[in-house]
């Protein structure tokens, strides 16, 4: 059962930006791209740094500030080294402009 929790308002995260949150001790980053809002874990799979320190590039990929690893916001898949595996994603929904995410 998806257990959604309100985490932010859509206006909190401007287009092309991301913001980090902590929910249930899970570190989460919400990304706002042309395609919409996505939630992924806020940890680079390369060396555990928070990816929220990085930026979102023109392809809608999160670019880690430390070593340039890239991840797809939507699928969490790795898009550029030095990371070799993807990151976790979380289910997200928007109701009345509020962002909810689901954590088991």
């Amino acid at each position, binding site marked *: 059962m998806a257990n959604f929790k*309100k*985490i*932010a308002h859509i206006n909190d995260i401007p287009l092309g930006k991301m*913001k*980090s*949150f*902590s*929910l*249930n*001790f*899970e*570190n989460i980053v919400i990304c706002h791209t042309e395609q919409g809002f996505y939630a992924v874990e806020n940890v680079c799979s390369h060396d*555990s*740094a*928070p990816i929220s320190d990085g930026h979102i590039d023109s392809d809608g990929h999160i670019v880690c500030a*430390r070593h340039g690893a890239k991840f797809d916001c939507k699928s969490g898949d790795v898009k550029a080294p030095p990371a070799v595996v993807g990151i976790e994603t979380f289910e997200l929904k928007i109701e009345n402009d509020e962002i909810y995410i689901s954590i088991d």
Partner: protein
Amino acid sequence: MKIQNQDFIIPEMTPELKRGPKWLQDKRTASKKSYNNTPIPRRGLHLWRYTDPTKFVVDKAQVTDAVFRDNFDEVIKSELALFKDGHSSAFVLDKAGRDIAFHINDKLTADGIIISKLSDAVESHFDIVNKHLYAQVNSNTGKFEAMNSALWNDGIFIYIPDGKSVEKPIHLLRESGLDNSAQFPRLLVVVGKNSEVTIIDEYSGGSEKQSDNMSLTNSAVEIFGDVDSRTRYISLQRNGEGAKVYLSHRAKAEQNASVLTVPLAFGAAVSKQNFGVTLNGTGADSKMYGLLFGGGRQHYDNHTLHHHIAGKTTSDINFKVVLKDKANSAYTGLIKIENEAKTCEAYQENRNLLLTKGCKVETIPELEILNEDVICSHGATIGPIDPEMIFFLKCRGINKTEATRMIVSGFVEATLKQVPADLKEKISEFVTKRLENI
């Protein structure tokens, strides 16, 4: 919802800064400055790679007076009964580092052993306190040690004069408040020449669930073992599973002194604990037997340090980790042998047992050896219970649950041997409870 990376300064008007005589107030103020001027540690930094330091930041304005758990009065009653039955030679009830009550066996008092409030000892035993307080855990140790150094309200002072042995353990129960509480307990132990003592330092209470208002316990422990002394220090952290715990421990062993440290951790949502022993005198010996058992989403980050400053010193660490569910543990253990510390021996072992899918382990056993005249080794292993062992026990008619329990009991046995029998029983109970539903 809290946003990360927020720092709060300790305001000038914080009442704790005015606690104690002038010299202490000055130290508190200096520690406050140091805290306020030190940025939150960067995640890339060595000892902060695995734990988010913002978890230990607290907005003093949001902190409320500690409210204790429902069954706390019963706990006190049963602990007092145990003391009266002679299970411990002293029972100290430390409520949120503020209100501290003492129950001490008369024999101890007759022997000149002091167990008192640190705030009293600051005046009554000025020489000893002044010499030792902040000597090992202070604002230079780190940002959160600076926080405790500035904000401790009251602490516990234990002084064992030369040549005295305390037969039964001294039991400290350090109770944290529920949600929205923040406590800064502090302990100073001075063990005289050729003296002997066992201290059980038990941390309990605190938030029971994870929320935005989780309790914070930031504790500092300083232990001094003089020439030929024998100190056994057991740290038992069994806080509520929503508590945030930061513990910084340092002990110093002088010539031929021995220190046995037993860090045990079962509680808290997130706990970062730092245990260090400095081998300061020739022939000093330190042993550490650690054990943690994490479940749910608990996060543990333990650091141990054996620092050999004097020659002919020996150290040994055996740190065990058992995890289930989504719990995770990071362990960093450093053995440092200085250039002047010739003819030393140092050993370190870290074993990690992973019981279920989803748990996570980091281990970094480190060595820094600055002279050739040493024997030094370390080892680490990580893995699940050997399926062959389960199979072997099953063949003998033991079901899987029971087999797992037996194997885990065997795994933790070496550590539990180091603690007094009634405590061992208590811990075995935790372990058994944790093994339910696997």
